[in-house]
Structures are given as C-alpha cells and as structure tokens.
C-alpha cells in the first residue's frame, strides 16, 4: 500500500526517483535541441551497447590500471611524508614550502613536464598523476598526525614499545579516518587527472578515446564512455572504500 507520502519516505526510493527525474529532463531538453548536440538517453544507451561490443572495456581496464597504480603510489609516498612531517617539526619547517608549491602547480603543467622530460611512455604518465596527488595526501596525513593523542603515545612509551611499534600500533589506528578521507578525495582527483594524461600523451584508455570522439564530434560516444567509467569509479567507492571505512572505524 503506497500512498504518495510513504512512497517518498524511503531514502533509496527518493534517490532513485531523483535519477529518473534527471534522465527525464535530459530527454526533454534533447528533444528540443539538435540531436547531434545533445543525444537522447536512448541514443546514448544504444551507443553504450555498441561500444561494449567494441573496445570499451579494454580502454576502461587500461585506465583503471593507471588509476590504481598511481593511487597506491601516491597514498604510500604521501602518507610516509605526511606522517614524518607531522611528527617532526623540523621536517615540517623545511618542507612546508615545497608542499605549498606542489599543491599549487596545475596538473597540466606536471603532466606536460613529465612527458617532455621522460618521454611519452607509461612510466611518465603514472609519475605525472602520482606527483599531482602526493601533496594532498601529505597535507591530510600531516594534519592527522598533528592531531594524534600524545597521551596514548605515552602509554606505549611506558610499556617500552619501539618507535616502529608505536607508529604501527598507536599512531596508525588514530590516522585511519584521515587515510580513508585521503583515499576518497584521492580517487576522485586521480581518475580525472588520468583522463587528461591519456588525452595528452597515450594511445589507449578512456581519455584517449574521448579525445578521438572529440575530433569526430561524436557526443553520444563521449557520453557513453563517461557514464560507464563513472559507474566503475562509483562502484569502487561503494564496494571498496565504504566497507573499508566501516571496518576501520567500527569502534566509533
């Protein structure tokens, strides 16, 4: 028995409903516009079906591999630097300036420089993305490390834990929320940068294909590649980051 009120009371139904409204508006607008400028949802759906039978999943897997590699590299390197800067004031004093510089260099500049210096190859591409992400991870982890409760660290000192053990067993658990937040913002940033990297200097991947469709003015294909890829990224958030966050912060 659904009355209108309790039908919209369910959160999931509300969210689903909002997607339907958006699709409807899109369809309506495309109806009045030239269909080459904004293809209708049905055209895009057909285009997705067509590209799936072609190379769509190959290019998506190539891009996802680049996203994953540079994501883990940036998380690892950024966390180590961030924790070190958070623990040691002297390092913070020396490298804070570098960090601000790193945060403010436009992604395109790093990408172009990497390609110019190291050639149009896979390593240069991944390096460019990683370098773009490291400063943000470092900043988040540095702030997290500064917020670490020293009183709990003292407990470790009382029991004569080594420095390594104190980091692993007392500091790291306090940093989990910061790591999750860095991972989340990292994923969102990295996949966008990867597309630019592919557009500028690779001959495969979603970014490369989008550039190809751009030169052919093929908007339906651009949209279909985008939707499928965004769907994958959202799936990573739902099935990977959210459950991880739940596990790491279950004590809250």
């Amino acid at each position, binding site marked *: 028995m659904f009355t209108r009120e309790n039908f919209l009371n369910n959160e999931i139904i509300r969210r689903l409903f909002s997607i339907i409204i958006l699709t409807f508006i899109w369809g309506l607008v495309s109806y009045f516009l030239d269909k080459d400028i904004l293809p209708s949802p049905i055209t895009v759906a057909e285009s997705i079906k067509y590209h799936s039978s072609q190379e769509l999943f190959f290019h998506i897997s190539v891009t996802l591999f680049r996203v994953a590699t540079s994501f883990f590299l940036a998380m690892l390197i950024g966390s180590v630097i961030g924790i070190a800067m958070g623990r040691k004031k002297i390092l913070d004093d020396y490298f804070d300036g570098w960090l601000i510089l790193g945060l403010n260099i436009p992604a395109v500049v790093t990408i172009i420089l990497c390609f110019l210096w190291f050639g149009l190859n896979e390593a240069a591409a991944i390096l460019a993305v990683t370098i773009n992400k490291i400063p943000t991870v470092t900043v988040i982890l540095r702030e997290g490390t500064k917020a670490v409760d020293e*009183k*709990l660290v*003292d*407990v470790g*000192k*009382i*029991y004569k834990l080594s420095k390594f053990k104190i980091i692993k*067993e*007392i500091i790291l*658990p*306090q940093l*989990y929320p910061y790591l999750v937040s860095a991972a989340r913002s990292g994923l969102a940033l990295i996949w966008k940068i990867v597309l630019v990297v592919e557009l500028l200097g690779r001959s495969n991947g979603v970014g490369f294909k989008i550039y190809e469709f751009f030169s052919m003015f093929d908007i339906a294909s651009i949209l279909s590649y985008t939707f499928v890829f965004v769907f994958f990224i959202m799936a990573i958030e739902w099935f990977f980051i959210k459950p991880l966050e739940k596990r790491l912060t279950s*004590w*809250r």
Partner: protein
Amino acid sequence: MEINKKKMLILNINIIKKIFPLKVGNVEKKNVIFKNFDLKINTGELICIFGPSGCGKTTLLNLISNLDNNFNGLISYNNKKITKEKIGYLFQSPRLFPWLTAKENIEFPIKQEKNSKKISSNLLQKIGLTKFGNSFPNKLSGGMQRRIALARAFSTQPKILLLDEPFVSLDNKIANQLRKLLINLWKQKKPTIIFVTHDLNEAIQLSDRIIFLSNLPAKILLDYKIKIKRPRSSNSAKFQSLKRLLSASVKP
C-alpha cells in the same frame, strides 16, 4: 644489619635538580620543581604522595617512569638505573585505546606473551567485567574504563606501579570499590606502589606510608607510617583521629 638494610632499600629517588621552563608572557621563567630531593621506598610498599596541586607530584611519577628524563640526579631500582625496569602507570584519565576492545586493551602490553589471553580473562574476572570483554571503551562507563585501565596496569605484573590520582572525578561509591580492587590486586604480587593524591582520606585508607610534599620546590614535610589494619573504615575513631592529627601537623 647494614647489608640487610641495603637489600630492603629498593627504589631510590635522588633528584638533585629538576627545572620546568615556564613562559609567562614573553618572560622565560625557570620553575624549580625539585632541589635535593631524596626518597627511598621499600619493595612491596604502598606509599601515597600527598600534596597541593602543582607541587610536582605528576612530574615525580614521570621522572620515575622515564617519560621525562630531563633532570639532574639518579633514580635507581635495586642499585641499577631504573630505565629498563617493568613499570606500570595508571594515569589520571584511563587512556584506553578506543579502537581496541576492553580485553584487547588489557592484553596490549603483553601481546607477545603466550598466555596473554589467559592473563586478560583472569584480570577481567577479577575486575568483574567478564561480560564486557568485547565492548569498546566508549560503550563503558567511566568507572568501568578505570577498572580496565587498572587491569592493564597490572597485566605485565610490574615491579613498580605508579598511580596518578586515578580515582579523581568518580563518585564516592565507585571510587571506594576501585580502591578495594586496587588493594586486592596489590596483595597478590605486592608490587611497589606509588600513589599520588590530594585526598587525605584516600591516602590514609590505602597507604603504608604517606609522604607529604610542600609547595615548590617540593620538599618532604612529613613521612608518616600508617599502622591501622586493613580494611580501614573512614568512619572508625582511629581513622578520624589520625586524619585530624595529620591535617593539623601538615597545615602551616
């Protein structure tokens, strides 16, 4: 006789000078906390350090535990520098690790030992929290958290146990239960206990010996052995008259 006496003198605290830099506005002031301070504590003794707030009681515990090693002097146990000795420390706040369960918190200092699980369940039973072993600290009351912290402090079977006003800000009934629990746990292996408090009732109730400290720089005003048998009721005539005597002789 001389040799015998030497064997009895176990914890030897000798602080020639301990300074605490204090910034008042732009002026650096050097606060002398201890100057030529001498205290010898027998093994297995439960002593209370009693004094006004800010008289260096916590600093004394931090020096003994080596959390603070910036001082002139020597603290030795059994004629050896104290730094390697097993020490337990119960802080003013419970300082439990919020991401570990009650049981895991108790096991934290003894994780490497084979029988850690047995020790922790045994302690949980003694503190009457077997049912709550798998609860996270934020689900437990303040009194329960302190019981867990007490169990953790005893888990390593320390030779020396330091307690820094651990039962402050609890209601009287719970604080009394915890004091009884402390005495019971102490009686099993008889570690040397140094208990800091500014509650004279608590000091008389618990200790073999009370050390009364003066204002800064801290000196020993009175070193008093208590001979009333345990358990001591604060309502008894003996208790009350001792309390009157002590407060009269220490007050300026």
